[in-house]
């Protein structure tokens, strides 16, 4: 993470964001933009995607935490992110347990090897 900001951003439901804000990650940058987004019933996919892309382009964010069920809504944006930083971590939520089969990072890792490659 050297050379990149140290903030952790969160995109999640109210409980997720509240919990991590309790943990002390809440910040506003010089433009008064927060490093979190609470996804509610009326939050549109465009809003989620825009916020995700903004977090990707900020140079003060090193890690993005996102509930996996929300990640599924913007899977194309996650899959398009090929850089190591910021790191994107999919996390469970109260109603949606974590499913390793859906995780972008782990799917990429599984695709690393084929029988040909290991010969």
């Amino acid at each position: 993470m050297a050379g990149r900001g140290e903030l952790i951003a969160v995109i999640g439901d109210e409980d997720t964001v509240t919990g991590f804000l309790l943990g002390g990650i809440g910040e506003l940058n010089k433009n008064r933009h927060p490093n979190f987004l609470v996804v509610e019933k009326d939050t549109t996919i465009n809003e989620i995607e825009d916020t995700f892309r903004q977090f990707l382009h900020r140079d003060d964010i090193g890690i993005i935490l996102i509930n996996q069920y929300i990640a599924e809504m913007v899977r194309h944006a996650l899959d398009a992110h090929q850089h190591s930083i910021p790191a994107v971590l999919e996390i469970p939520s109260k109603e949606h347990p974590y499913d390793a089969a859906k995780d972008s990072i782990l799917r990429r890792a599984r695709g690393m090897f084929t029988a040909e490659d290991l010969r």
Partner: protein
Amino acid sequence: MEAPDLRVELDSLLLQLLRDLEELEGKRAVLNARVEEVGGWGSLRDGQFHPPFSSFSETQEGLQKFEVVRAGIHTPEEVGPGEAAFLSSALRRRKGPAKTPEPQSSEAPQDPLNWFGILVPHSLRQAQASFRDGLQLAADIASLQNRIDWGRNQLRGLQEKLKKLEPGTA
């Protein structure tokens, strides 16, 4: 580099990758348990925890005002009386009426538990501890993911070199 040396390096890299993946899986399980089952949601639910405002957008605004006061840019009066409860911990630290902004940048960050008054439920403290542990795990997992990404790129590079040296095995 000769093909046998490449193969040795490839095997070594592969083993390291598999170890990293195993470690990633382990840390993931711990993080998920921490956040989802043990401390995070359970404690928040048990404490019937609610943010200090009716909607989270207000909490976001409250957080903005908290940061503004902490930075000494505005006096509490300019921020607004409605947020008095939320800002109480910041206000208590000020000495008398604030005529000129105090430089706040060297102050230690406020504990978010202070948003909810002096006496907070034990379950809320537990939830905070769980989420803080989760943050450390998240940082560890992010580092592991970066290492795995790096290893993956190295692996591809070595495989390409090997195919050039031994086209018959491709």
